[in-house]
């Protein structure tokens, strides 16, 4: 590659940055993304210009570009082929497919092809685990990529189908796959936006909060915090400006339920955001969608346009005096930005470093203002509750885990997909729903990379927050990855360790250093090259990360691996 000056035309750039200098730092990442789209990559000259236009110090822009996997300061291929090598895809040939793609194009990973048309990357979980092994070719999600035939999915990538959405309690997923997702009239015909109309016309914001409190709804993003309380705290926090943020960063390996909801029923996500906004007294909201979800982003932008045209967004909605607007923000390739405070930093145009807590988002959130941040599924559930009532909601599930839950089944099951069920079904039933295990069961990873392993003896466990917790497991974001006897569990652990080492933000020492040391030790065990004392060192690293890390990433970076060695000590015997 020659080092010629990057040409970009000033007019196109003007169109990108014009009027943005007033919005300040928050305009930075959208501007970088657009500039990258227009000019291929973020050259020094280009970034210098953007920095001057937006008045952001150049060193800090450098820091931002360096943080996010999807921002590039060197030339890249016109089409980037991102092959998932996270555990769920690695298990079924992701690595081989990535190598095959490189060989086919005659390139190394991360290096553009001679003609500049392609570049191959091995990436962490793309949220396409139901289609494993999967890739993102440009903006096209591709299912079941064949390592033997890379030419076919590189040259003419076929868009993956929406994926299986099933289960025996179709509340949130009732419309998924049934209606055209961006057909607003169809959504309304099936009861959509009735809850919003009722709420903003007949209910006080505190009534909405009260309903959600009574329902017992807890967050579906992993931390299981009571949603009603979160809304109540945010509504009560002092200050004029408040925000609602919908967390659609969905990057936990094995998780793809939010994608199913966004692609299958985008209006209910929007309705949930509006309802939450009304409840907490917010006039604006953000929907932060991970950068690897171009399809969900496309569908949601279209849906937001329809909703705005229909008068559900904007000034004085339906003549009620309620004013609310919603903006989509794109993630740029960083799992940590699913952590709520890192997500705020990212919207604010910074590196995705988690903040110290307290203070909590309910008082000091986005732009330092009181903010309620909720997962996509949480907000869709809130929409359902406000449409159908607390009684109906509590009629299913258990006292402590009421209602329905979306589970993401992947790995060695007959029919991977999203399954909506009442809380309390047994793990076995869930697996059966997905057509059962292909082969003989070895292990189930519950809760994703941040979760823990269940053994075949634990299939009777009821899938509720309380039962899994009592068993030392976690429900997390609803990940159920099934692993049969043919799989190499050690390799699975290596790719889990790799995930955390790649995604640690680097802010605090235990996780920044520990995720790397953990990867090295697990790698040595996998290669049969473990040193004396490695097992103890692994425990100590896990202990330090779990207890001393600054945020949830580090606190859970060792749990799955430690649970595996606890249950199968022979995996890593000294």
């Amino acid at each position: 590659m020659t080092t010629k000056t990057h040409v970009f035309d000033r007019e196109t750039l003007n169109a990108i940055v014009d009027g943005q200098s007033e919005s300040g730092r928050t305009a930075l990442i959208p501007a970088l993304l657009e500039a990258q789209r227009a000019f291929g990559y973020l050259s020094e000259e280009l970034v210098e210009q953007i920095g001057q236009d937006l008045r952001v110090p150049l060193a800090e822009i450098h820091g931002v570009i360096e943080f996010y996997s999807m921002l590039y300061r060197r030339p890249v291929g016109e089409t980037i082929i991102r092959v998932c090598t996270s555990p769920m895809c690695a298990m079924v040939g992701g690595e081989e497919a990535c190598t095959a793609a490189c060989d086919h194009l005659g390139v190394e990973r991360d290096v553009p092809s001679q003609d500049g048309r392609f570049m191959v990357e091995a990436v962490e979980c793309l949220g396409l685990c139901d289609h494993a092994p999967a890739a993102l070719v440009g903006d096209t999600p591709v299912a079941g990529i064949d390592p033997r035939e890379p030419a076919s999915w590189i040259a003419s990538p076929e868009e993956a189908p929406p994926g299986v959405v099933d289960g025996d309690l179709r509340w949130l997923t009732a419309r998924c796959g049934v209606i055209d997702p961006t057909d607003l009239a169809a959504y309304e015909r099936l009861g959509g936006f009735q809850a919003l109309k009722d709420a903003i016309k007949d209910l006080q914001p505190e009534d909405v909060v009260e309903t959600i409190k009574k329902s017992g709804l807890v967050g579906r993003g992993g931390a299981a915090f009571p949603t009603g309380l979160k809304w109540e705290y945010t509504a009560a926090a002092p200050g004029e400006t408040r925000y609602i943020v919908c967390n659609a960063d969905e990057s936990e390996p094995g998780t793809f339920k939010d994608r199913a909801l966004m692609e299958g029923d985008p209006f209910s996500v929007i309705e949930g955001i509006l309802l939450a906004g009304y409840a907490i007294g917010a006039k604006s909201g953000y929907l932060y969608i991970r950068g690897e979800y171009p399809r969900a982003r496309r569908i949601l932008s279209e849906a937001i346009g329809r909703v705005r045209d229909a008068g559900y967004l904007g000034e004085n909605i339906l003549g009620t005096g309620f004013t609310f607007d919603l903006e989509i923000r794109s993630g740029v390739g960083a799992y940590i930005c699913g952590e709520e405070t890192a997500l705020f930093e990212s919207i604010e145009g910074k590196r995705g470093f988690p903040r110290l807590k307290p203070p909590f988002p309910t008082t000091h959130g986005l732009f330092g203002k009181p903010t309620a941040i909720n997962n996509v599924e949480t907000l869709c559930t809130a929409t359902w509750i406000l449409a159908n009532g607390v009684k109906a909601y509590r009629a299913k599930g258990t006292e402590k885990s009421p209602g329905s839950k979306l589970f993401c089944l992947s790995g060695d099951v007959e029919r991977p997909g999203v399954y909506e069920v009442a809380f309390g079904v047994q793990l076995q039933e869930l697996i059966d729903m997905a057509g059962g295990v292909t082969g003989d069961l070895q292990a189930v990873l519950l809760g994703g990379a941040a979760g823990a392993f269940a053994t075949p003896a634990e299939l009777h466990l009821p899938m509720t927050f309380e039962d899994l917790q009592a068993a030392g497991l976690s429900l997390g974001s609803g990940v159920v990855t099934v692993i049969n006897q043919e799989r190499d569990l050690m390799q699975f652990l290596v790719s889990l360790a790799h995930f955390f080492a790649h995604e640690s933000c680097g802010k605090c020492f235990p996780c920044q250093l520990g995720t790397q040391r953990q990867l090295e030790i697990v790698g040595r065990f996998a290669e049969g090259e473990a040193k004396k004392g490695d097992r103890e060192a692994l425990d100590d690293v896990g202990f330090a990360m779990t207890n001393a890390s600054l945020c949830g990433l580090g606190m859970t970076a060792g749990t799955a691996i430690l649970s595996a060695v606890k249950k199968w000590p022979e995996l890593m015997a000294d």
Partner: protein
Amino acid sequence: MEDSISLTIDGTEVNVERGTTILKAAEAAGIEIPVLCYFAHTTANGLCRLCVVETEGVRGMQAACVAEASEGSVVHTDSPGVQSARKTILEMLASTVDLSEAPELHKLMQRYDAQPKRFEGGKRRQPEMIDDNPMYIRDYAKCVMCWRCVQVCAADAQYTYAIDFSGRGFNSSIGTFFDKPIPQTTCVFCGQCVGVCPTGALKGKREFLFEQGVAPEDIFQVTRRNGKNQRSLKGPHLDRGG
């Protein structure tokens, strides 16, 4: 006192003002908690986690340098768990970074019986030393990522924004815009970063040359003659209003 709270630290009852950190509260009780990234003149970020303590009834550990002492809490600053976490953090750090010029850390390593050897063979951070300006050298193989230099260069003191971060996770480092040499950045050579660096990663050029055995008159030549008018004119200069 209206705004005073009381808590127990390692068995000693302490009264402090509300809002006091556990670190300061312990200090008041004559208990020393080890710190690394904490520095009285920069914003505390709770990065190194060497100062972690346990509070009864609270899950995980708290970074004493940023966590507020709370009424009635019972804090343990040197429990077996705390010792284990500190030991492991120090070992991982020492097996990653050259700590040869960080005597304070050596003392801590002795106190916690840290054995960095057990992580030997792992990846280290050892970039080449950067000697690109007449005022200071940057030897990031000694950098522990305490953020102090970035903070004093930015909003904690100088508002110059010459340096920030590169990379992510283990592969983080301190960097300049597109890795440019310091003279081509907004650096005003205030020297504050050098002053706050705890590990010798940033060092005055004179001190560096002196250590290398260069004669004082030659040092003068190098540091005075070569640095004129090299400051970058590009990019926003926040010290001059953008």
